């Protein structure tokens, strides 16, 4: 079933500095609550969002990007969706980047694979020169 917007509004948070991570977490939290997610699911999607926003600061050109956060539904199901985008150099090998422990920056390498485990759906679109888009969805259970 197609995933549709449950609320006409979408909240966009620009990610350009470390302090923006807090705004990303707060916005995701409030939209997850509004979509009816329980505490554990809220915590999971907020944590995944924090990882992905941090990826933008770490990897995107000039550490800049944004995230669009919105409530969605598919039939009766409600959830929250976050679309992270940056115009950075792109991910050269998505398959490799999705592997636990792989990092080009000396981190734990948990950002992408860890985030995927925390949400219900995650898609990564990236190519050299066109930046990276990561979409996550967490459904109310």
């Amino acid at each position: 079933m197609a995933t549709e917007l449950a609320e006409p509004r979408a909240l966009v948070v620009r990610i350009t500095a470390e302090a923006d991570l807090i705004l990303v977490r707060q916005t995701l939290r409030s939209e997850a609550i509004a979509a009816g997610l329980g505490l554990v699911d809220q915590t999971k999607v907020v944590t995944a969002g924090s990882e992905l926003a941090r990826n933008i600061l770490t990897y995107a050109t000039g550490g800049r990007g944004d995230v669009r956060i919105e409530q969605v539904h598919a039939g009766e199901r409600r959830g929250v969706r976050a679309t992270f985008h940056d115009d950075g150099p792109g991910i050269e090998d998505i398959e490799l980047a999705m592997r636990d422990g792989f990092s080009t920056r000396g981190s734990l390498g948990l950002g992408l694979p860890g985030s995927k485990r925390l949400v219900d759906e995650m898609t990564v679109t990236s190519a050299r020169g066109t930046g990276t888009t990561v979409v996550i969805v967490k459904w109310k259970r």
Partner: protein
Amino acid sequence: MSQIVPILRIGDTLLVSLQGELDDTAVIRVEDQLTREVARTGATGTLIDVSGLSVVDSFIARVIARIVGMTRLLGSEAVVVGIQPAVAITLVELGVPMGHLDTALNAEQGLTLLRRLRANGHRAG
């Protein structure tokens, strides 16, 4: 401006309580201050209370683990107390290695654990 996180000293134990929305700078500063306080005071134990954190991502978790490692190197024991259940579930799924940390449900049990660790040395691993 990032938050000030106070470090309390009670006898030979230090207590730091991480709360609310901490930015990275604040977490790093706690690491720096706490390490110096352990060295300065010769505290033999540190309680790191994270009950006020509703989100712990891999960065914050990594810094907390690093703080524990550093205080141990200084001859002090450290116990992480009060991890919220939702945070614990999330950290396990995220895959952050936290199993080597000494943890307790709350500050009181943390103090009991600190006493035992001081007596026996911290557990292997």
